[in-house]
Every structure is written in C-alpha cells, then in structure tokens.
C-alpha cells in the first residue's frame, strides 16, 4: 500500500486546541506521527522579563486558557518564595477553594471535549452547562469569568463576598446531583467502554521514562499527586483521596477525571466548613518600586493536568531575570502523543489526544 502524509489540525474537526499533527499513514494505520506546536507561541516568558513582578499576572493566567488559576498560584508561590512573603491562613483556604473550583471547571471542559469527540452531544452540553455554573461563581468572586487574576503574592485580592458560601454549595449540589445521570448515560455506557478501552495504552515504565505526570501516570496505578507530596495552600488540612486506575488507557484516564471531580467537590465543602476568619492578604511593597531579593526558586503545584512547575531567577531588580514554566502538557503533547499514535488508526487520533488532556497554549507559552 502507498505511504501518504496526512496533516491533522490545527483546524480539523477531530482536534481540540491549536495544535497540528503530521501523520505518515499506510491505509488507515499510522506509521509515524509528528506533533507541531507553536500556533499559539506568544513568547510570554521573554515578555515577562520586561515587566514588573506584578505586571506579569495578566500574562501568567493566559498560559493555560482552560485552567488559569493554577498558573497564577504557581507564579504567586514563586514570588512569595523569593521575596519571603507569608500568606494568611484564610487566604490559603480561599486559594484552595478557587483552585478546586477551577479544577472542576477544567475537568468539566475535558468531559465536554471527550464526549463531544465520541458523539455524545447531550453529555457534552450538560458538561458545558455545569462548567458555566462554576464560571458564574468565579464572576461573582473575582469579576471575571475566565482569567481571574485573583491569586496574588501575599494572599488573594479580596475576601469572599456575602452569601458566597451558600451559592457555592448550591452550585455543587446541582452538579453533584447530576452525577448519576452522567454515569448512566456516559461513564457506564457500553459505547464509551468499547470506544475507549485499550486506546492509547501506556505502561507505568514508559510513562515515567517520558516524564508523564497527572492522570496519565495515575491511570497506570501510581499515586503521584503533588497536593499530597508537597502540600501547598490548605491541602494539608483537608482530607481527600487520590483516585488511581491500573490499565493506563483512555478509558481509565477519562474515569479518573470523573473521580477527581468528586474529590474536588469534597475538598471545597471541607474548606468552606473549616475556613477561619481573618485577613486575606499581607500587604506587599509598592508594586512599581518592588525589588525582589536575588535568588532562584523551583516551585510546583498539581494543576488539573499534572505537575506544573516554575523555575524563577531574580537578580535583585524590579523585574524577573528569567521565568520558565514546566507545563504538564509539554511532555504529554510532544512525546507521549507521538509515541501512542504509532500503529494506531486514523480514527483514534482525536480519541488519544483528547484522552491525554493536552492543552496546546500550555505547550507553546
């Protein structure tokens, strides 16, 4: 049979996100795949060297379009570590609530993408609707739906508004009470099982070799979650589980997303109950004249997709000297996707890619 080169994306129906793959195919079998990122490269890390520590926030949150809060968190943690700023206890709890709500919205978006790709349009619309409810909460809390710029060095920008707790609880109740519907129509659906089982299978050894984190690693049976390993914010004060699966295929990864959403709901509920009174931020110096002490730091958080790290260098000036984000999609999209697509069929490209939960802007930065 003749070997052909096939371009997949960035504007393709089966593709979510601005990324393209060059496939070498024979019939409908893929011989070789090459991912081409760069459609969204904005050079943020370079631009950050021209702006003050605080001015960088509007760029930081735009690195990951779907889940901006963990980006803000990791940047704020980096600045706090370099400048040695303490965070008040109440702010830690609020941060945890925001991060978990944002994980929830991101996972719902992931459910939308996956269900949509498989043709489960109803479930996709439900997920989108529920994500919108979470975004409404963000709108009330921060004033913005998508890019919040809420987490700040030294705490968060403002306290929870009046009556916010009840609104969160009612939204979580709405989402939680539709879990049986999701299960009956999607997660326990035979079609989903047939379509996702044994797709994009990866072993624990391979996953480790290629630098995987997040669901991809947890789907192979490894309990690896930075919220437990190096607790930040208030994660050491709440009780939650790390869901894992054994098979390492698309089916396990999508199930993990569902299980993690339930854990997120539990964490938010606990935080709302335990949240102490007090200040929500420690005053930082005048941002225009703020010089951060010389030094370097590597901090990391568990974003909805895996390990999100930040290497930051300061040379004692009012601007960072070097900022480099270690985003989870980077190894997932560039190495693991290429590996899993070898010998797969063309119909499974979208399936594999969306189950890996790759966000293209995170790779490009």
């Amino acid at each position, binding site marked *: 049979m003749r070997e052909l080169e096939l371009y997949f994306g960035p504007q393709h129906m089966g593709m979510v996100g601005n990324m393209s793959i060059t496939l070498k195919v024979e019939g409908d079998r893929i011989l070789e795949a090459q991912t081409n990122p760069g459609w969204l490269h904005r050079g943020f890390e370079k631009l950050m060297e021209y702006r003050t520590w605080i001015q960088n926030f509007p760029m930081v949150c735009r690195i990951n379009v779907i889940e901006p809060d963990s980006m803000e968190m990791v940047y704020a943690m980096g600045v706090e570590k370099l400048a040695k700023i303490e965070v008040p206890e109440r702010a830690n709890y609020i941060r945890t609530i925001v991060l978990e709500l944002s994980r929830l919205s991101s996972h719902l978006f992931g459910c939308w993408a996956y269900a949509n790709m498989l043709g489960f349009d109803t479930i996709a619309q439900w997920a989108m609707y529920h994500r919108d409810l979470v975004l409404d909460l963000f709108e009330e809390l921060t004033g913005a739906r998508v890019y919040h710029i809420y987490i700040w060095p030294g705490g968060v920008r403002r306290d929870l508004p009046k009556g916010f707790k009840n609104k969160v609880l009612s939204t979580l109740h709405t989402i939680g009470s539709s879990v049986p519907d999701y299960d009956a129509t999607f997660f326990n659906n035979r079609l989903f099982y047939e379509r996702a089982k044994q797709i994009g299978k990866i072993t624990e050894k391979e996953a480790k070799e290629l630098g995987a984190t997040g669901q991809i690693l947890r789907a192979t049976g490894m309990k690896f979650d930075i919220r437990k390993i190096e607790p930040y914010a208030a994660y050491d004060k709440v009780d939650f589980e790390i869901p894992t699966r054994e098979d390492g295929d698309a089916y396990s990864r999508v199930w993990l997303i569902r299980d993690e959403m339930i854990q997120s709901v539990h964490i938010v509920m606990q935080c709302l109950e335990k949240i102490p009174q007090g200040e929500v931020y420690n005053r930082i110096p005048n941002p225009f004249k703020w010089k951060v002490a010389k030094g370097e730091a590597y901090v990391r958080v568990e974003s909805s997709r895996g390990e999100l790290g930040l290497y930051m260098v300061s040379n004692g000036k009012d601007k960072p000297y*070097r900022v480099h984000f270690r985003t989870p999609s980077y190894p997932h999209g560039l190495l693991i996707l290429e590996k899993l697509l070898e010998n797969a069929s063309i119909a499974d490209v979208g399936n594999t890619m969306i189950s890996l939960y790759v966000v293209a802007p995170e790779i490009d930065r």
Partner: protein
Amino acid sequence: MNKLLKGELESAFKDVLVNILEETRLTATAPKDAVLSILSFLKNKGYDHLALISCVDWIEEKEFELVYVLTSYSEKDRKEHIILKTRILRKKPEFKTVISVFKNAEPYERELHELFGINFEGNERLTPLFLERDYKIPPFRKDFDTREYVKETFDKIPFVEEEKE
C-alpha cells in the same frame, strides 16, 4: 536526606559545588564535562524524573547557565529536588545531549536550541519547534530586544488606506 546527598555528591565528584537552598531543594554547580555522569549517578540514586531543562542567559558574565531540575517518582524522596547547573560560554554555545540518560530531554533541548541558539550535540531532532520567522539573534537571549524587533518588523507594514469615495 539533603545533607547525606550533599556528602555523596561531593565525594563522588571533585568539582561539584553543592548548596542547600531550602529543606527540599538542593542546587549543584558542576563543570560541563561532569553533567552527564552526575545525571546518570543521580538517576541510579532514584532521581528518575527530569522535570525541566532550562537556560539562563548571564550576559554580563558572557555565559549561558543550563539548569536541570531533577526529582523522583519513587515513594521515599518525592519531595526532594536537585537543581543541577552548569555554565557554557556564550561565544561557543555547544553542549552534549542527555537523551541517553533521560529520554524526555528531547523537546527541552529542541526548545533551547531554537530560543537560545544552543547546539546539543547528539540530539538528532533540533528542528524548529515554535518559531515561524528567522531571527538574527535567537529571541530569548538577553541581547535580543523584543520592542526593537517589533518596531523593525511590523512598523514597515503600511496601513491599509481607506478608499476615497
């Protein structure tokens, strides 16, 4: 844990400077020839997760600093991070690839090749990753001025003139 590792690293390699940054972060500065052997030494010690390869352009000292951030997948030292640093001359931006030790180094080296112009000998896939245009100076170096570049490149594009009726 950190003090133990500090001692081990310093006794196994002569010119390594180890500094304890904080409880779970350790920096090690090594000469460039020793990097590959230190990385495989650490990998055998259980630090099997290469989280990041980064580069810092110290233009005043005329050097690039390559940074390898290592941590572990195994249960006992998951918290620990080793930040291994080495310096190469800006005039001669060449280094050896570490793919033989860590497979996932490939895209990081590809990125540094494109953005800093560092040539990693032995990496066969140093093709463009993000950038579309050709740049005289690799754009993430400190002597590349983004604002100047934008002015030069995009100011020359004439405005679309309004049609006169």
